[in-house]
């Protein structure tokens, strides 16, 4: 099994006393200390503002995964709306919005692989989204 580590360093001077947080986690299968062994890495260019199933439950064979999504745009006004749920075949009727990834933003989270992860570009002019899934 592979060893994969994911680290975050948060730094903020919003408050009078600065906030500085650093943590590193090793990615394991659910409830174990066994490393993960599967990785998917994809870059897509989306050309419409339709919601799409970016990461489907069928693409992962476990019930515990980690997801990284990045909006590499340098335009801060362009964003992806990230949602999770049962989007069906292009019908965004049963999804819960998590948040918006503006240009330059990323997100990292565990995924229980119960529902698809969906994205909706804010513009139709070739928005690039990058994602990785570890399971």
């Amino acid at each position: 099994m592979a060893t994969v580590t994911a680290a975050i360093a948060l730094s903020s001077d919003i408050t009078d006393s600065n906030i500085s947080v650093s943590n590193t986690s090793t990615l394991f299968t659910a409830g174990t200390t066994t490393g993960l062994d599967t990785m998917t890495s994809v870059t897509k260019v989306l050309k419409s503002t339709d919601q799409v199933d970016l990461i489907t439950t069928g693409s992962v064979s476990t019930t515990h995964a980690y997801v990284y999504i990045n909006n590499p745009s340098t335009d801060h006004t362009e964003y992806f709306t990230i949602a999770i749920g049962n989007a069906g075949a292009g019908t965004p009727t049963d999804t819960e919005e998590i948040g918006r990834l503006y240009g330059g933003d990323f997100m990292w989270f565990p995924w229980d692989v119960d529902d698809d992860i969906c994205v909706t570009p804010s513009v139709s002019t070739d928005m690039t989204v990058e994602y990785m899934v570890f399971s």
Partner: protein
Amino acid sequence: MATTATFTLTSADIAGDPVNVSKTATCTKAGATTDLDQTTGLNRVHLRSTTNKVLLAANAEGNDLSAKVYIINKATDPTLYLTVTINAQTIGKLYAGDWMFIPWSQTDTSADIEVAATNWTASTGDIPVEYALFHEDTDFLTNA
């Protein structure tokens, strides 16, 4: 005032070649280059509820605004996990040592971020959880 988040992912053996990802994001207001200017600071709670508890309460006024949420499970027992949900939609399970960093839209007042120590028992001990919210707008939080 700036808030930055740096993500680093490394693996020497999950693929034929080493995998290294490094990304730094400066947390800004929605659609702008202006830095976020408010935060809850870093918080720590000890969770023992197997049912959902509100970690961050949503306010629909935040829907079009920017917010970033950091949550980490500080337990050391690898079997202990938090289930993280938004509006009853499960996002995933944070096992011991796992962390998440996500943008948070508040599509309505039901979009609370909730956590549950799903497999907690009296013998497992509490699950320490640390979290922080970085955001904009004074009315962002229900209790602001």
